């Protein structure tokens, strides 16, 4: 369960970093192209970082391997004074293991191996959180920004960047054209030669905080999936 927790914490850190935009710095050194867009995106992330300190939410993290639930954790998440997330475990339900000794042993080893793999993956995923303004600008400068029409008839901006962290990776950021808030993130990259995809769908509270409501990390070659659902995002009393 230790590795399972580290996996969950790592994934949570990843999604939270996307949400609050750690270490946001000035973007004056950015290239002129898409600079306006980058500045607006950074401004929104700063607002969200400030708002996140006033909110708490529940996070349900489900780890699946070969379609079987390995672990389900539900945590109460809030943002500390330093901006770092603070988690309180509400429930942890590990997946069942086989009853027979040898099968149980094999399943435990398999689970540990998978959790170790995903723990290391966290380090890579963190690089895709665009943790600094420089990273945001670096991404948006080379990204192709294309306006698209949403089904509701609004304008969305879809920024597609390649080779942001690793050669050949793809980072697609979809923003609301009116507010520049994040609506969706899609990342396709590789880790130890295995294709990895991450998809996050965002929503905005009535108070204006934008956070990832659903997040899915998939490693098809390992038949592993991490699903995160953040819900009940409410202001702190």
């Amino acid at each position: 369960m230790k590795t399972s927790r580290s996996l969950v914490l790592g994934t949570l850190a990843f999604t939270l970093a996307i949400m609050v935009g750690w270490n946001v710095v000035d973007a004056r050194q950015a290239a002129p192209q898409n600079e306006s867009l980058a500045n607006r995106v950074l401004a929104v992330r700063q607002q969200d970082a400030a708002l996140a300190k006033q909110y708490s939410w529940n996070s349900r993290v489900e780890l699946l391997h070969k379609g079987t639930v390995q672990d389900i954790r539900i945590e109460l998440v809030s943002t500390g004074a330093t901006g770092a997330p603070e988690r309180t475990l509400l429930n942890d339900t590990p997946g069942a293991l086989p009853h027979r000794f040898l099968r149980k042993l094999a399943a435990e080893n398999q689970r540990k191996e998978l959790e170790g793999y995903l723990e290391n993956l966290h380090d890579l995923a963190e690089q895709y959180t665009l943790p600094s303004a420089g990273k945001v600008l670096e991404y948006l400068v080379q990204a192709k920004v294309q306006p698209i029409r949403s089904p509701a008839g609004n304008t969305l901006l879809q920024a597609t960047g390649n080779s942001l962290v690793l050669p050949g990776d793809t980072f697609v950021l979809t923003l609301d054209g009116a507010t520049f808030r994040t609506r969706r993130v899609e990342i396709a990259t590789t880790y130890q030669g295995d294709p990895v995809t991450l998809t996050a769908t965002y929503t905005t509270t009535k108070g204006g905080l934008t956070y990832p409501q659903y997040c899915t990390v998939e490693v098809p070659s390992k038949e592993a999936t991490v699903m995160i659902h953040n819900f009940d995002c409410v202001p702190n009393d």
Partner: protein
Amino acid sequence: MLNKKIACTLMVAGTLAAIAPQAMGWGCSRSFSGGGRYGGSFSHSGSSSGGYGGFSHSGSTSYTSRYGHTYSGSHSGSGTYGYGGASYHGSYSGSAGYHSYSGSASYCGYHGCAYPTYSTGCYGSGFGAGLATGAIVGAAVASSAHAAAPVYVYPASGVYVQPTPVYTAPAATPAPAAGPAPVPPSPEVALPTGATVTVLPPGFATVTVKGTQYYLSGVTWYRMEYGANGVYFLVVPAP
């Protein structure tokens, strides 16, 4: 004396011989019940009586199917017979479920054929027709005191005549009046330069000219800008 006895005996015998054919009538009644091959049960009761030169018969039959449907019928008739022929006139009535039927039948012996007529409350009264047939058979045997079990006669196959389809041709469209050809939709009028929109028209194309990205819709060129209220598209001259 002996002659007197003989004469008296012959007188009595002759009288009896003369009276008997008229005064000695006959009569009987019978009832029976049973079950059918496919379930259900039936019962019949009838009585007949007759005398010299004439007879009468009445009876009733009821049948209850295995599904609980009850069919009942009654018939009565009278006839005469004698040398050279016989006649029978009868009537029947009954009910089959919620259908009813009635009719009459005649049988004329050697003088002709009997044709039953009957009317029913609705279609599907095969049982009524069967009963009518039974009445005729009963008339033929005249003095038969018993009636046979119901005889089922299915209606003859119907003849279906397909109605001739009727086609209604649409009203002829009047030929367009001679004149100028229809005017095609007018091409999109270019928006004035400097105008702004927040949403591009559907079907716009992205065109990159000298490193700058433009959006072309119809004959209007747009360039994306970022404002305080979000992204907007500025109408620009064709690059």
